[in-house]
């Protein structure tokens, strides 16, 4: 069953789009979307888990203050989803637990 989104686009707010991947699934999202918005629109409400891995977390403030929207972007963990715009070919993954640095 496809994920159900809590948010829907207003008609006429969607062009132009870029192709990104969210957790391995391809999505066409409007180019002006932030990563957090793209995930919410795609029905991926939870951005991942807390560092302890014990509970799901999701964006709360969408203005760069709560840091609950941290996601992995293009291989880099704990990027700030609501303050980062999507870009063509971007690979977004939910965070699960703590990052492993390399």
């Amino acid at each position, binding site marked *: 069953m496809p994920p*159900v*989104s*809590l*948010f*829907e*686009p*207003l*008609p*006429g*707010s*969607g062009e132009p789009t870029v192709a990104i991947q969210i957790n391995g699934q391809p999505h066409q999202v*409007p180019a*002006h*979307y*932030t990563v957090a*918005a793209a995930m*919410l*629109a795609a029905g991926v*409400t*939870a951005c991942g888990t*807390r560092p*302890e891995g014990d*509970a*799901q*977390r*999701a*964006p*709360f*403030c*969408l*203005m*760069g*203050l*709560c*840091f*609950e929207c*941290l996601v992995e972007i293009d291989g*880099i963990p704990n*990027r*700030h989803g609501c*303050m*980062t*715009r999507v870009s063509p070919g971007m690979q977004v993954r939910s965070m699960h637990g703590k990052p492993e640095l390399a």
Partner: protein
Amino acid sequence: MSTERWDLLIIGAGPAGMAGAVTARERGLSVLVVDEAPDAGGHFYRGAGMPAVLREPVLGADVLAGGALIEAFAACGAECRPGTLVWQLTGGEGGEWCAMLAEDQGAGRVCSVQAGAVLLALGAQERPFPVSGWTLPGAMGVGAAQTLMKTQGLVPVPEAVLVGGGPLLYLFAYQLLQAGRRVQALLETSSAGALWAALPRLPRALLGLGQLAKGLRILAALRKAGIPRIRGVGKIEIAGSTCVEGVRFQAGARGGSLATPLVLLHHGFIPAVNLSRSLGCLHDWDPDQFCWRPRVDLWGQSSRPGIWIAGDGAAIAGARTARWKGVLAALDIARAAGRGDAAALRAKALRARLGCLGPQGMVAFTDRLYRPPDWLRRPGDDVVVCRCESVTAGEVRRLVQLGCLGPNQMKAFTRCGMGDCQGRFCGPTVSELLAQAGGRTVAEVGYFRLRPPLKPVPLEAIAAAEAPVERGKFPS
């Protein structure tokens, strides 16, 4: 690393920051404006993400009025760097300030700038809303949802329930109606008793007749559209196991619940004080707005010479007042830099004060009408207070019994305030709980000690920020 020097650094490109920049440029100051968001405009004047045809009816004249300011700002000759974070601000040689800037939250270019004066215009944040279940996916702020609408053109599903108090609740529900959308219901904490209590402030609010009338129009529209409003609500609990499934509440003697996957919470705004606190500016507890405010004079000069604060970051009063305060601060900064014009200063100051009367009167009225209730500011034991570290109100209270009376000791013992959000969503609640448990005022309790970095930045950004020095030795 070579350092640029500016007469004035403005942090925040919202109404106060932009208005301040325009005025400072008129007085011949060199101005750098930095904002973390991808575009200038701040929160209030956003709207670029909405379909053009909907902007006017949904956002309304107030927001669109910002267009003129944004144009004036773009043309005034200030350098604007969006997508840039200021993560540290320190006083340097000869009264100058040194700011560390990072693009892309530190993943991008890092540099330092020097400034003769700094204007903080960081605005507000939504008041924390600690209720049972508020950390579940599907619970977020009304402001968050409004940001999604304005900057992305995304609107909540019609099952959404708006919970809390304050003008934004009604404004957002109204904006959704204008966009052809509905919400399931409004659960409001304020009751008839609050209206009686707020009535003495109504005369002053009438100075903001336009805003008052707009508010009444909004309420009438909601009524006409049949959006259910349940008032006098208490004991909010968000239900769900791995995500939001509904919300339970008490309204008077009755209990109730609504099924919904999306609960939007709001109970007013509070100034964003992390930067002003980390600079050591003095702050006062406002017992009317239940928030901390930096201490500023009429011109916005803070308790630290060379730091001015304007807009909602100094006191919550809305965009119109923020613009005036930005202008006043810039005039005072110009005066301090020897570029003042005393006559212009006085004239503008008078106009500013008159211009702010209405909005400030309205704020005083709505503050009383939509006062955040005790159970929200001082939640029950099982409610998570610190989202980042999962600390409950009960744990805070238990430690008070052991003699842990201050917010910094509480931070040390529970880790409240040590997470990514740096106390933004738990600090106010911790101070309130300590006041309650210790029988003191919040002013007496105080707040977390805050320091840079203002937001998390990668270690390599800190490493690159300055040339290394000797770390020093100690005996043995």
